[in-house]
């Protein structure tokens, strides 16, 4: 499946660097600002992950929870998430977007309607945090039929049998969770160990793009440069929170931060 996501990885590879993936919550801190933040980020990020907020997340740490609660309080609904991406794609039509969230939001919206709206609004990929393999087989197939990349997650606890099966059934992208943690935890495993695990995944199928996420900040990102892609999420959400607390403009603050992150992996 050659879609915008694969293209973004290819481009980064040509420049001998990992692709930079950012995660922000749609509607954080307002619908307008989250669009502006996405636009500011897209100058430096290769792929934008956009979260659709849920109020009972079981895998997110404090930073993303705060962003999600802010967005929900501002009245963000699933249809607004699609609208934000649609508006973003008007000016940044070639920038890949991956939506990320929890399965209940998809269920309540209607699985087919959700996927059709993804397609209509040019969404390139999906991460559903609480829909692991093999439970996700049917849904991942539905995605494939619409040329939407379903991103499989792999964690340090994933057994070898599962690992082989998941990689075999994955689309073009795999997401490796760096450590046992919710999002935004402090990196408690050495980057060396993380890269070692990452290489195990790559060895099974070198063609699949594998990104590493969880615990990646300005401090740690350069040590993981050898991966196909690196995801920064909680650190960005934290920056939005702190700029709001200080009365600063989150759009410029986050833009600057992502620029710095990019410079560290060049």
């Amino acid at each position, binding site marked *: 499946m050659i879609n915008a996501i694969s293209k973004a990885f290819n481009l980064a590879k040509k420049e001998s660097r990992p692709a930079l993936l950012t995660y922000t919550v749609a509607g954080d801190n307002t619908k307008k600002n989250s669009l502006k933040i996405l636009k500011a980020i897209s100058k430096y990020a290769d792929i934008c992950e956009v979260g659709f907020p849920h109020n009972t997340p079981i895998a997110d740490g404090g930073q993303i929870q705060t962003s999600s609660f802010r967005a929900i309080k501002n009245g963000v609904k699933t249809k607004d998430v699609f609208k934000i991406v649609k508006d973003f794609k008007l000016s940044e039509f070639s920038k890949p977007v991956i939506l990320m969230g929890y399965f209940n939001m998809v269920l309540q919206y209607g699985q087919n309607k959700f996927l059709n709206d993804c397609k209509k609004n040019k969404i390139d990929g999906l991460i559903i945090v609480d829909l692991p393999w093999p439970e996700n087989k049917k849904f991942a197939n539905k995605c494939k039929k619409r040329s939407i990349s379903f991103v499989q997650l792999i964690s340090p*606890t994933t057994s070898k049998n599962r690992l082989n099966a998941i990689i075999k059934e994955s689309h073009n992208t795999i997401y490796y969770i760096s450590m046992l943690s919710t999002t935004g935890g402090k990196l408690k495993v050495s980057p060396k160990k993380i890269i070692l695990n990452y290489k195990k995944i790559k060895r099974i199928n070198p063609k699949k793009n594998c990104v590493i996420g969880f615990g990646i900040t300005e401090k740690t990102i350069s040590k993981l440069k050898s991966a196909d892609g690196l995801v920064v999420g909680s650190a960005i959400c934290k920056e939005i929170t702190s700029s709001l607390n200080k009365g600063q403009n989150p759009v410029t603050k986050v833009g600057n931060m992502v620029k710095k992150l990019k410079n560290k992996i060049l």
Partner: protein
Amino acid sequence: MKLKKKISVIDQHDKFGFWGGKFGGNFVPETLKKPINDLELLFNKLKKDRKFISERDRFFKNWVGAPTRFIKLNNLTEHVGGAEIWSKVVSDANGGAHKIYNATVHCLLAKKSGKRIICGDTGAGYAGKMLSMAAKKFGLKCKIFMGAKDIKRQQPNVKAIKGNGAEIIPVYSGSQTLVDAVSECMRFWVANCDTTAMCVGSTVGPNIFVKICGWSTSQISRELKIQILDEFGKIPKRLKLYNCVGGGSSSFGFWNEFMDYDKKQVEFIGVEAGGPSKSKKHAAPLTYGSKIGILHGAAQYVNQNSEGQIEETESISAGLDYPGVSPLHCFLKDTKRARYTAASDEDALKAFKIVSKCESIRPSLEPSHAFSVAISEAKKLSKNTIVIVNSCGDAYKDRKILKKKLGLKL
């Protein structure tokens, strides 16, 4: 959707963990797949192991205090003037509530798996209190997650948890009640599943936790069946079992042994928390027809908005104050084996007043919901009908609320 006979309900799920093809399952992050799988292997092996079962029974008998009493409420029967009203006084159990069964089994499993720490959630504080007791008994370190609002309203249990040497982690997110405590506990487990065992405090959560809890609380109906046979010589022709339903652990345990009887003979009535009578908020997803959604790793009827955001609940009883309900109860509802209804805060308080005035038992606010419906239905029932209410918790933990609302001193 059909309930099978002669197969335990906890085992009537498909290979993905769904009861009736749609309730339950394992909607969990990838990280939890392995620890859940490990727990499944361990539990499925041990639940058939005679040595393990006799170990469990020994702890239930000598430490929990099995069997708990089964008594006739003569004064209440006379006061109501209809069916015979009896109670299974599960609050006799060590610690004062049914939560001790699940806590004990989880600690036994944690020991077998070599874990040294156990974490758990709590609403009313009973699940936390019992887990801290069991953890102390089995030499495990214990962390209890509890909503900040519940910490304020259930102080006696908070003190007990601390007294047992457990750490209480207050949860400030969302509504600061049970739903947030369960979320935070699961998040903690995601980050620490290599060293820590998790105990989910009710028949909720990913499939295996529903099963372990249901298996543990079934002790209640195992005892009850023997006691009924002792008392009546047979299972009465008209038997009605009333139980409150929050997550649904005590009610499932109270009914399990009677599952295969025709509902015309043994009827199950689950009473959910209707919340304050003037409020639109409630904790009664089965009674008020909430839609199926996913909460804490399982598909179930759950209070949510059209977007899928989980809605806040309101109930005077912290133990029932939960937006979802066990997949087992969703299954029992849709197969029509059990009937569900709700009682308001006011109904529960009124029932507490009547029961504690007539009898020497003092049901906590949770079973007071069940008493409320039992009393009003018993009035209209024939004298040869046997009504049994599970008094699954003691009101000591509610004494602040009872003093404020009723002026009663415990």
